[in-house]
């Protein structure tokens, strides 16, 4: 009898549990043929399933260009279904903008089409992809079920690409992860900096070649005459404010790490430094600051020893 009741409970609860694991992806049209799928400005969790990344797609007359595939197989499938509600055009090209797992672990849903990334990104995904995926299983749990790494099969070179009425300029930067693709669509004026820009969500630094490098590349982006910019994390903007926030925050990080090293602070002491109130609107700033100290402070300490 007891077993029967447990069995009944399981039968009743299973569908509700399954229903919980559905990404509620919405596509917002931000320019001609250009759709933005905005994620939450949260950390990875079993509640949000890793729906914390922005993806996008451009519907050209020669097929759809998919810009990042999300955090899991389930996300990739949801994204493909969403694209299908907007267009019947075939998928032309799928892009993984850099090596981080929330941008390529949805590749399985797009495995029938060419998936391209920068050469270095391809190598990074081949090398670290499995351990990234493992970490995602730990962070978001069952949302990841069935997710496996699909390494991009094509290399995209920086430069101009004319496709289906869109004049696309691909750029290779490095500030966020060592190899960061940036796209400027000259036809619509939409700039896709991907994770080179976080807006209202604290930037992450596990693979940055350096804060100064990243800041200099933000200055390059400031020179681009865009009408709309879609950050990799955080809401879209139509002006310079996201780039200004990035520039300011990167500068502050560099300055606080350098000053702390000069004072001889230990890592735990740096982590308690207060973040200026002008950054109060940035989600996850405290936890990301602590992570950044872990990633970068040893280099700043080393520089002070050498003085």
């Amino acid at each position: 009898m007891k077993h029967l009741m447990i069995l009944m409970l399981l039968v009743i609860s299973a569908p509700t549990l399954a229903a919980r694991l559905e990404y509620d992806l919405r596509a917002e049209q931000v320019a001609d043929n250009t759709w933005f799928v905005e994620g939450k400005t949260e950390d990875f969790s079993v509640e949000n399933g890793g729906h914390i990344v922005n993806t996008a797609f451009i519907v050209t007359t020669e097929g759809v260009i998919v810009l990042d595939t999300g955090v899991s197989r389930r996300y990739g499938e949801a994204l493909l279904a969403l694209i299908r509600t907007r267009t019947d055009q075939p998928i032309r090209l799928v892009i993984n903008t850099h090596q981080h797992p929330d941008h390529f672990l949805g590749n399985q849903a797009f495995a029938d089409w060419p998936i391209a990334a920068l050469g270095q990104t391809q190598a990074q995904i081949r090398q670290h992809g499995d351990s990234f995926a493992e970490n995602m299983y730990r962070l978001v749990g069952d949302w990841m079920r069935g997710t496996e790494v699909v390494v991009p099969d094509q290399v995209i070179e920086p430069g101009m690409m004319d496709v289906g009425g869109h004049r696309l300029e691909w750029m290779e930067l490095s500030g966020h992860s060592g190899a960061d693709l940036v796209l400027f669509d000259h036809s619509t004026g939409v700039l896709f900096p991907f994770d080179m820009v976080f807006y209202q969500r604290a930037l992450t630094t596990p693979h940055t070649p350096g804060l100064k490098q990243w800041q200099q590349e933000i200055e390059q982006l400031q020179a681009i005459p865009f009408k709309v910019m879609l950050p990799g994390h955080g809401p879209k903007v139509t002006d310079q404010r996201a780039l200004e926030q990035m520039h300011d925050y990167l500068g502050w990080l560099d300055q606080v790490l350098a000053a702390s090293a000069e004072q001889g602070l230990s890592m735990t002491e740096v982590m308690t430094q207060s973040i200026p109130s002008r950054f109060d609107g940035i989600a996850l700033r405290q936890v990301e600051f602590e992570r950044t100290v872990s990633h970068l402070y040893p280099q700043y300490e080393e520089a002070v020893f050498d003085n």
Partner: protein
Amino acid sequence: MMRIYQWLTGCAALLCMNVALAAQPPDPLNSVLWDYTRNIFLGDVDYRFNPDVRVDVPAFAEDPTQVPITVDARALSGNIERIVVWADLNPIQHIFNYFPSELASPKVSLRIKVQQSTAIRAAVLTKTGEWHIGYAQLDAAGGGCTTPSMGNADPYWQSHLGEVKARRFAADDSEGARYKFRVIHPMDTGLVDAIPEFYLQQVELKGPEGTTVVRMELSPPVSENPVITFDLDDTRSGYTLWMRDNGGNEFEQTL
């Protein structure tokens, strides 16, 4: 009948044990290994949890091979025999012992390896024989103790073993000085296949007359290429750092 008698004695013994345990303060972190580890490091003695013995760790161990911790026992300054620091759930639990002299300000920072989320303990034995326990809970994905040291993939350490970089800074409070140093050493735990245990065991900071001002005994969970920060209530210069590893190598450097 005999069996019932045995059973009753067993129950009585268990009850007595519970009473004895109840007399000791319960672990605020509710770690399953608290009673086991405190028995190893303290023995069967009285103790108290004391929040004035501060253990600072990050909210999350971003890199489980390099987790920063600071132990600050300045609240008991002048009355400290030794500080014992360990991680309850590490395969090698002991991290370091710290022995201050009168010229030491008992605050020390370094980086450690952790294998999983764990309680970190700093047990301070006072000169009057009391144990004061500081603690912190560290969240981690883990694997820090069974990952090969970076040095094993790169022969750099072999020609730079024991090389020290150090600098003196102003103290973070009152009168005194702070020394931070970084030494090249793989600090291998012996828990990785085919890589034997190889780590710094002894660190001493000696004053101008050669007397030891701070002495530390390290265990393998101290991170590779240790970075250690000491605080002193002494502004004199002329300090030296002396270290020895379990291979018998000795290193000495004027700071």
